[in-house]
């Protein structure tokens, strides 16, 4: 098979667009994780579970409202909010008591929550697969050089940049965001000037959880909502955060782009071993820049 010819075929553009739509989901989830990692210093293993809960809640909302575009859009709002509420309870109820302890304790706690939340999902929603239909509005696909690109993927291509801009505004243009950034660099100093760091942490964790829930709700129509969807994502999200630079939002974006694009283009070049490409990219990045592409906040 001629690899080079594959890479410069008409399929390339459609493959890049498909890769970018995948990047959107990866970015939304990993940016939330990176945010929490940067400010709270928690490697949140339970982040994938929050994403899974987002998908299940989206399913429930859509079922409750009887489907259709409105129900889907409502789910995109309600699911992240509920997940954010779960995040709030987790942070205030549990994590906030452990900030003074070693990081290992926090890591263990997030790991235990990954298991607990997984079981809770099973108790609430059961072990059956759930499926959300793409609303009629997004059904079907556009043609790009004779190859289909689902309308829903195009929708994701619009959502991704919107979220990136929203996050940029929150972090750079709001007081809360500025304080959170300061707390990421030196939490003690922020506390010393009379700011309640605890609430800054809570805000960051809730925002991160919101993003995880949004990622779950957005992926819901594309996949089979099931137990275990958290595990497959959490690995990718961690790798993205690591290659991007721990705690760096733009690093998460860059990492997602590398991950999403190497995969979709890798499939085009060598379909049999398409899965290997993103991981090879991760290895390549870490060899060249062991601390990640962008400056880590750690």
């Amino acid at each position, binding site marked *: 098979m001629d690899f080079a010819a594959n890479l410069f075929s008409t399929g390339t553009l459609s493959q890049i667009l*498909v890769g970018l739509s995948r990047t959107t989901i990866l970015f939304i989830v990993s940016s939330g994780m990176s945010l929490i990692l940067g400010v709270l210093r928690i490697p949140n293993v339970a982040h994938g579970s929050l994403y899974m809960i987002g998908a299940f809640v989206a399913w429930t909302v859509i079922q409750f409202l009887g489907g259709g575009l409105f129900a889907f859009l409502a789910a995109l709002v309600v699911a992240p909010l509920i997940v954010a509420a779960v995040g709030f309870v987790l942070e205030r109820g549990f994590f906030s008591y452990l900030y003074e302890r070693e990081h290992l304790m926090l890591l263990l706690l997030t790991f235990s929550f990954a298991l607990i939340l997984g079981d809770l999902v099973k108790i609430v929603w059961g*072990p059956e697969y759930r499926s959300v239909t793409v609303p009629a509005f997004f059904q079907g*696909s556009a043609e790009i050089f004779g190859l*289909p690109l689902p309308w829903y993927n195009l929708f994701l291509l619009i959502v991704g940049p919107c979220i990136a801009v929203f996050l940029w505004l929150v972090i750079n243009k709001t007081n809360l965001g500025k304080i959170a950034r300061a707390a990421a660099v030196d939490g003690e100093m922020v506390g010393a000037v009379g700011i309640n760091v605890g609430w800054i942490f809570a805000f960051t964790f809730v925002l991160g959880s919101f993003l995880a829930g949004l990622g779950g709700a957005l992926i819901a129509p594309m996949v*089979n909502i099931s137990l275990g969807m958290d595990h497959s994502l959490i690995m990718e999200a961690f790798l993205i955060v690591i290659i991007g630079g721990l705690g760096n939002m733009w690093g998460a974006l860059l990492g997602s782009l590398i991950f999403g694009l190497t995969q979709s283009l890798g499939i085009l070049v060598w379909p*049999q071993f398409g899965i290997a490409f993103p991981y090879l990219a991760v290895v390549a990045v870490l060899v060249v820049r062991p601390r990640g592409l962008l400056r880590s906040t750690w």
Partner: protein
Amino acid sequence: MGKIVSFPAVVLSMFCLAGSGIAGDTIKVGFVDTYSGPATTFTNDVLDGFKMAAEKINAKGGVLGRKITYVTRDDKFKPDIGLTMAKELILNENVDLLVGTINSATALAVSDLCRKEKVPFIATFSKSDKITGEKGHRYVFGMNENTEMAGRAAAKALSRMKFVKYWIAGDDYEYGHAIANGVFNHLKTLNPKVQLLGQSWWKVGETDFTPYITQILAAKPDFVIVATGGGGMVNFQKAAQSTGFNKRIPFYQHTAIELSTLMPQGQNAPEGVYGTANYLFYYPDSKENKAFVEEFRKAYNRYPKSGALYGYMTAQFIAKSFEKAGKIDREKLIDAMEGMTLPSPVGPMEMRACDHQVTLPMFFGVTKKSTQHEFLVAGDVVSIPGKDYMPSCAEIAKARAK
């Protein structure tokens, strides 16, 4: 020193006595299977089918005057846990035989243990052809189809079609490769004209198939063999529906037409997908099948899936074999079960004597919308009799001799 050694021995013997005391007046079946996580979609049906049959048998006075009882152990889809549980069931619970598991690696481990312990083991959902093939032995039985059987059945149906350029795509794990190879290798022998254009493999649990689908479309094969399992079944079908893949290139998936794949998608599953399945609650439209569906729905308020058939027949085979043996004895049970043929909701099922693999029909069909159900069903169903797609006894003997 002597005291230290004897104390555990005493405790152990007490356990054994207690165990054998319970086993004395009932037939005790030990289930090792995955009862947590996504696999329960399939395993709960096996257990419920078994329970339904066992309750009916017990209501009629049981087998040789004894009631069928069962204990379950959750292996959490992990072979090491499954093996420990199986040991515990044999040693502490003193079960008469073991039943399970959906994980093929667990099934092979438990099968090996059962060979050493001389305890019969009926595998009810694991799809590796090694279980009753090259790794088969006197103590293991297969109550469901395996990858080799599914592959041959699909190859038989596909060989009648005129597709030439094939593409293989699937979940990159043993099941995916076994199914894909099973279908394509047999297809190649039945129709030497077919050629393999290329392959795509993705990691198990892949969520977004769109990049793979657009790449396959660009390569323009005539037909695609999609070797997905578990959650990948629905995920791939959703991606096929949203990209219109099924309308451009026809494809096949084992269990594509099964309820577990089609029901979660409602009316939005892709039409025209070829698939095979051992059980469809609406086909064959026979008296036996209707009665089975009605009984199952009454008991559990849902349609039975293939697992329900396997569980139901497992209980029947155990009961009839003990009856035929005339006593509750593990070796006699095996002798009695060999070559036994029982009526089932899908027609007669035979437990082949040479390899302990059940012979049952395979249904090949294509997904279509239904006027009666809220989900897609299989249309143009062809029933492929078990003997047409089973590896021959000679082939099994050759595989085992290796």
